[in-house]
């Protein structure tokens, strides 16, 4: 996930990095020791470092005033019991960071676990128990957790014991001017991922009923999820927690977020004025907008010599005209992160000048594939795309040339019907094929390729496609398995009648066209539909 420019810290930060205040220039000293051999104490469950006031908290999260106040009121003063809380909203709306910063403001002990890093029940249970038992996985212990815990019954028992022990020690500290209270809060993040686990129908009611199962009033539960409560299906239901909703940011909130921490506010605001409204129609997520805006802003500032200049009216329109062709390009890039930025830049300059408006894709594939793998990919694509009955006519002994000696005059209606059927097949997606068909097609086109490549590559003494035998069988199977693991081809279940596994090619036509072009293979001749 891209790092967000705003003071809202990216969701993946750990507690240690959140110890620094968002707006200060000088980095705070981390009180959490990086020394791994130091044992954990109860104080590590609370944020160290300087505290922030409520106003600072509200100012760090523009547009979240109502939600912050509601959360703080819900948690209440020190040691007041609460019913479980369910915080939900779209992605990148600041749920996790708001909750964590709120704990920084309130300075209360809490345990945080995310269902992204704890991707199975046993890991989730053990992570929570480790944090409560103040156990750190280190080399001396063989990186083991404090207790092995796989079953929910063990988890509830161990959790109850650990929590009572922890709360007793917190209460014992109360005399020694420890203003952190004697309540412990458990924060479960990304709860919507639990729905896809194997045992989700028992884990989801278990988590929601945890408060009633534990029967400890000094525990507060906070669930954070991207999906609302009605999407958590359960046969017999569960105890419903109290919902708090985080809506997406409005236009003005987004402006405020992007404007903070900018070196040249006036320049950036003129940039936002021209760009935000167009991107706002597509997406309102902060992470996607920031990935699009950072390179766009660099492009916007290119004609300006001095980055601190304040643009006036003509300057603005000139900058906007310079930016115009790149906007639609970057609209497509709101999610992709290129692996080779330099190569992309160079190619972009070439391709943008070809056509403006709709974004241009690169002409070449930007990863390396061996020639035999390319042929295999093309044959898989053809096998998925064309119905099996046409193989004989397409791949006959003349090398697949268009064999239309007998042309019957077809009526308009049947042509239309045929086109509609072709469209249907296209809509349904790629079909499956057995291994034998793939090998047969591969044999045909590899031999064709050999003929066409022969003349052109005579001078190229280097690695030639091994077209004489189409490679040995084991090579092809190896290539096939590597294509499968690269997710170009998927392996489906076996057909119950035939009993062999079927494959499906899931690459898009663009990539296959590029691959065919690099081999100088006439792909369009073999496609069922032109």
């Amino acid at each position, binding site marked *: 996930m891209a790092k967000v420019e705003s003071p809202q810290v990216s969701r993946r930060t750990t507690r240690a990095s959140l110890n620094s205040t968002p707006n200060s220039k000088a980095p705070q000293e981390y009180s959490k020791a990086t020394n791994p051999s130091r044992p954990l104490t109860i104080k590590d469950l609370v944020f160290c470092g300087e505290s922030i006031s409520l106003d600072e908290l509200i100012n760090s999260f523009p547009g979240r005033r109502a939600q912050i106040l*509601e959360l703080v*009121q819900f948690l*209440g*003063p020190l*040691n*007041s*019991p*609460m*019913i479980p809380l369910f915080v*939900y909203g*779209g*992605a990148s709306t600041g749920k996790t960071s708001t909750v964590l910063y709120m704990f920084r403001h309130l300075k209360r002990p809490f345990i945080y676990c995310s269902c992204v890093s704890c991707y199975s029940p046993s890991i989730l249970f053990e992570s929570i128990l480790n944090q409560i038992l103040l156990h750190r996985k280190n080399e001396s212990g063989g990186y083991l957790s404090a207790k092995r815990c796989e*079953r*929910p*019954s063990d988890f509830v*028992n161990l959790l109850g014991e650990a929590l009572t022990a922890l709360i007793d020690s917190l209460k014992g500290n109360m005399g020694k001017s420890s203003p952190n209270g004697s309540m412990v809060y458990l924060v479960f993040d990304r709860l919507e991922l639990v729905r896809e686990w194997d045992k989700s129908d028992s884990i989801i*009611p278990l988590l929601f*009923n945890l408060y*009633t*199962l534990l029967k400890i*009033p000094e525990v507060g539960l906070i669930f954070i999820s*991207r*999906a*609302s*409560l*009605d*999407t958590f299906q359960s046969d*017999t*239901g*569960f*105890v*419903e927690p*109290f*919902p*708090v*909703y985080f*809506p*997406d940011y409005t236009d003005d909130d987004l402006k405020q977020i992007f404007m903070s921490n900018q070196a040249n506010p006036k320049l950036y605001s003129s940039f936002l004025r021209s760009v935000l409204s167009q991107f*706002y*129609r*597509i*997406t*309102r*997520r902060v992470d996607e907008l920031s990935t699009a805006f950072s390179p766009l802003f660099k492009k916007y500032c290119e004609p300006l010599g001095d980055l601190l200049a304040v643009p006036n009216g003509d300057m603005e329109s000139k900058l906007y005209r310079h930016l115009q062709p790149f906007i639609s390009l970057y*609209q*497509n890039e*709101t*999610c992709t992160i290129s692996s080779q930025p330099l190569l992309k830049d160079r190619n972009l300059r070439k391709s943008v000048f070809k056509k403006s408006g*709709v*974004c241009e894709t690169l002409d070449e594939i930007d990863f390396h594939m061996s020639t035999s793998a390319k042929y295999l990919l093309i044959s898989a694509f053809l096998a998925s795309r064309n119905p099996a009955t046409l193989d004989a006519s397409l791949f006959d002994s003349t090398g697949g040339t268009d064999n239309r000696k007998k042309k019957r005059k077809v009526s308009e209606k049947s042509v239309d019907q045929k086109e509609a059927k072709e469209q*249907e097949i*296209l*809509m*349904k*997606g*790629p079909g499956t094929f057995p291994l034998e068909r793939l090998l047969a097609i591969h044999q045909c086109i590899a031999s064709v390729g050999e003929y066409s490549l022969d003349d052109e590559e005579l001078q190229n003494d280097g690695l030639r496609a091994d077209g004489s035998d189409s490679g040995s069988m084991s090579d092809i199977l190896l290539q096939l398995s590597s294509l499968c693991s690269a997710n170009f081809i998927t*392996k*489906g279940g076996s057909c119950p009648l035939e009993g062999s596994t079927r494959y*499906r090619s*899931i690459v898009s036509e663009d990539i296959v066209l590029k691959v065919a072009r690099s081999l100088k293979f006439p792909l369009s001749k073999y496609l069922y539909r032109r």
Partner: protein
Amino acid sequence: MGVENPAEVAKFIIRSRIADPLFVYSYFSQLPDSNYSKLKYIISSSVTEACNNSVLLLGPRGCGKTAVLELVLEDLLKEHPDMISVVKLNGLLHSDNNCALKEIARQVCMEHQLQFSKMASFDENSKFLLSILRECGLAHKTIVFVLEEFDLFTEGKQRLLYSLLDAMQSVLSQAVVVGVSCRLDADQLLEKRVRSRFSHRKLLFLSSPGEDFHRLAEHILLLPTDSRLPNDFRASFNEKLLNILAGEEFKRVVDQLCYSDSTVSHLLRFLFCAVCHMDLSSGSLSIKNFKSALPSIQRQPKQEALKDCSILQLHLLVCMKRLEVKEVELCNFNSIMKEYKRIRDSFETVDYYARNICLRAFEHLLQRGLVSFQDSRGQGQSAEFRPVKLLISWHELQQGLQSFPSCPTILHKLMAREG
């Protein structure tokens, strides 16, 4: 002591009351002829007469079955000390036979200070159970087995239920099995041999109507005499509260609350929200708190998700709706793009976005829960080809479009006509 402190103390007292189910349901114990008294009679009679018994507590979630049971057990433990021991099992955790026996052994060992071995096998645990039942029977001590989420124990072979109920048939044992379930047909789920050993006693817990809420709210919200509270503050708080509770507006709010869900736990969440919003400076609850708590409790997640959509996503939703109206057989991303293209060709005011951008927006719709795949397993197809379905109705979509700020008028037009 200024005005702040008593209000904070009051808030704290009420919050702890709401979060404590035993206090809440102690109200019901005062009513005559309630489930509390019936349950108490059943268990106490089997204790005093040294016989076996079994009973099922049924009712929707949040009606206080477990809480009433806890109250009964608490009272009975006070009345007959040393004659009752309690073993609590939960269907969510202990539905597996081995797990359940291990848990029974653990709890019995903890109570009687015996050595508990985690490595004990299933046979050893079951023998232990039988011997414990025999011993307790000889000592005239009743064991109460509480089985929560009873319907989850009826999955599979029901071996635990059979062994428990079968063990109760012997003359020597004294046990009461109390099952708690939210399925009203839990007893129909029992196997024939288990059902024949079950006494078919059922207590139904139904959610109470509106007037009961009134008195329950009074029970929770009226402040007791407490050393931390000054008397005049308490008196004025209670008086203002009684005025509010008797008023028309509060009745209307409670009626609206009970339309969707009239269980006690729903009311408790509502009261908790109202109390959290209590203004500390004024020092008392006002009707405004209750009114503002109502929309926080009654959420409409699909409308909220619609309001958070971007304009492109609204276009995609409208295209899907039109496809649904036309009853197209196959609705996947490709067919939606075709419809989108058709709309773009007929109306020039519709924006044009490339396929990748639309696919991204479509995936966000999937994550939001407004659209979902028709088959839950992938079959290895990518997101563009799998059939999808809309999870919102025409009416909801129209409502969402109308309340959307700056919704393009073209969408309203497209929703209105079907061509």
